[in-house]
């Protein structure tokens, strides 16, 4: 395996009496696409919330390239190189498509309020750079988010395009690792197929390390270098897609105990 980029060591999280994640160890190597699968309520999204700093784990360590993330506010974690998308889309709906992406460049830019009011040359240069960055990220998705769409509000986009815009927005923070929460949810088969190709392209051309939550097994099979299966917050299997898909515990978690009925 390549050098580990994201590392979780013995991470636990409980909501009241409900143990959502218990003593989870997880390593994502640099340049890898790792998938997290598991039935509903297995703790997959909680895992993302822990890594991005929305929740704080009760115990354990989360390291990005050796740097501890636990206790940092979300915006600092994002600046260190972790960006995510949301299972339930959370775009800035009333802002334009391009503005959505430009807003996410906040952490990488510096111009303060007084330079903005004075419109210094440096500030204007930075604005142009942000704009170019946004166009570049949107161009990653081909024609779909280009041209006249730039100035349309995000709410006017179709569902699939909103998912793409969320990925573009996450890319604008210039992350080292992208966390994609069910990128193919709610997409038709053609769009799902396309997402599979896109994730490959994100790794190969974009150079991102990717951790993805996905329910669609075709997508998981198509993209994953490694698959991690969770159930009730416990890692029950890890390995290649074939290894995990044939693992008895995984089959049990998804389909119930054989002969139990």
């Amino acid at each position: 395996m390549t050098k580990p980029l994201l590392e979780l060591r013995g991470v636990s999280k409980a909501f009241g009496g409900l143990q959502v994640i218990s003593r989870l160890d997880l390593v994502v190597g640099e340049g890898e696409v790792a998938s997290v699968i598991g039935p509903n309520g297995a703790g997959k999204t909680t895992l993302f919330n822990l890594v991005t700093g929305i929740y704080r784990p009760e115990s354990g360590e989360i390291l990005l390239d050796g740097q501890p993330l636990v206790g940092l506010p979300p915006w600092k974690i994002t600046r260190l190189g972790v960006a995510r998308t949301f299972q339930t889309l959370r775009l800035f709906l009333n802002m334009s498509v391009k503005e959505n992406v430009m807003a996410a460049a906040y952490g990488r830019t510096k111009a303060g309020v007084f330079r903005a009011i004075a419109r210094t040359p440096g500030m204007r240069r930075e604005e142009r750079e942000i704009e170019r960055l946004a166009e570049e990220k949107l161009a990653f998705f081909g024609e779909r988010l280009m041209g006249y769409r730039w100035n349309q509000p995000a709410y006017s986009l179709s569902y699939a395009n909103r998912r793409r815009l969320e990925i573009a927005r996450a890319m604008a923070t210039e992350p080292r690792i992208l966390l994609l929460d069910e990128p193919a949810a709610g997409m038709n088969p053609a769009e799902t197929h396309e997402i599979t190709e896109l994730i490959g392209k994100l790794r190969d051309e974009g150079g991102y390390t990717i951790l993805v939550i996905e329910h669609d097994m075709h997508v998981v099979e198509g993209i994953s270098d490694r698959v991690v299966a969770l159930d009730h917050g416990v890692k029950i299997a890890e390995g290649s897609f074939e290894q995990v898909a044939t693992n008895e515990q995984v089959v049990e978690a998804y389909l119930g105990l054989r002969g139990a009925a």
Partner: protein
Amino acid sequence: MALPERPDVRDRPSIGVDEWVARHGERRVRRTGRLAPAFRAVERIPPPARIAPFVALAALLPFLTSSDYVISVGFDTLIYVLLALGLNVVVGFAGLLDLGYIAFFGFGAYAYAEFSSKQFHMHWPTWGTVPIVMVATALLGLLLGLPSRRLLGDYLAIVTLFFGQAFVTFVSNANRITPPGHSGPVDFTGGPNGIPNVDPWNLFGLKIGSTKGYFYLALVIAVVVMLALYFLKESRTGRAWRALREDPLAAELMSMPVNRLKLLAFMFGAATAGLTGTVFAAYQQGVFPSNFDVPLLITIYAMVILGGTGSLVGVAIGAVTINVLLEILRTADQARFVFYGFILAGLLRFLRPLWALAAVLAGAAIFGIALHELVPHVVSGATGGTAEGGGWLSRAAHAWVLLPKNGTLVGNYCYVGLVGLVLLLVLLRGALRLVLLAPVLYLAAFVWENRLVQEPSITRLILLGAILVVLMNARPQGLLGTARVEIV
């Protein structure tokens, strides 16, 4: 990375349903109709330059009138514009419901007064005082923001409302505070009597003494503040504010420090209000606790909401509209024009088809003339009341509307009846509504001529309220606001 070229017709991607939309090319929203070229011409002008004609028009005001009163109304309007612009940073840009905003205006005014009056016998130069007051007000905004930055929506509203009220209570009572290590009580704010004899603005020897001078001062400040806020809005900070207004959690996860940005919005709003306060205190030559109470807060909110939260030009237009309307409604003759004009405009806007409009207008006219002919034969004293005001509109109205001798009393009862009938009218649909509309219009005119117009300076708030209700129903997003989509 280069932008991809437009794909050739043959190799257009076949994957994905929404490609159909992409194939239909530039589906930009285009304005249509006769005014389209004018709109396009305006859109070509850079936004900061678009306010130039309005500023020029405002600058001409002192040349068009010799009345100091009119210029003072213009000055008040500009103060309202400034306050609305500042509130817009907090409410419009960052989406924080700040009900303590007026306290910053008051703080700025009081702070200026402390440094420029006999209260402590300090008469600092204005170029020194104003920046200090602005920074101090911004810091006060920071102080208010610190404990309340994690509060959302309604909770933030009640905490800030308390702050605003606490400010008024404080300045009304801070005339007998004994500081530690001091022998007797010290008068800080003059208590309920305020601080009189505040120095005028004095810029490097140029004393601003006339109403006209303050009008131009306020105009210059308003333009500078507007431009500064426009540039701020179009910067990364402005984008971040809009983002956190849309979705604070997503903004935080997209590298924006949400709490700091909220505090920054508080500080900018407060600094703008503080600056406005210094001008106000100097113009009024005094500051009093009652200047900074809840009614002012409500007025400013009405201006921001009417203009369209988030739009700089919008909130300025909102401020001008409301303040000028309130002024016009002070005298009976002008108020009458507003009253009938607004009813007519409302009917023209909402009553369709045109025959229905014609029928209602004709119905109301005939109804009135018939009553005018018949009622005096039946009820004695139904005419002979005193008519208020003059002019052709007044004469026309009095040929149509009955003016009973005890008009004030009858008008009071009819006013209550009118409110009930209007509520009933809202519930009705179809032909019934049309039939009822004509008598209701007549009754409205009756109440207006017999009661409301007798004391326009008191009843103007009723009319303004009615106008706002109709306007906000017609354009819920405000005059220049953009309709926001919450769930799609």
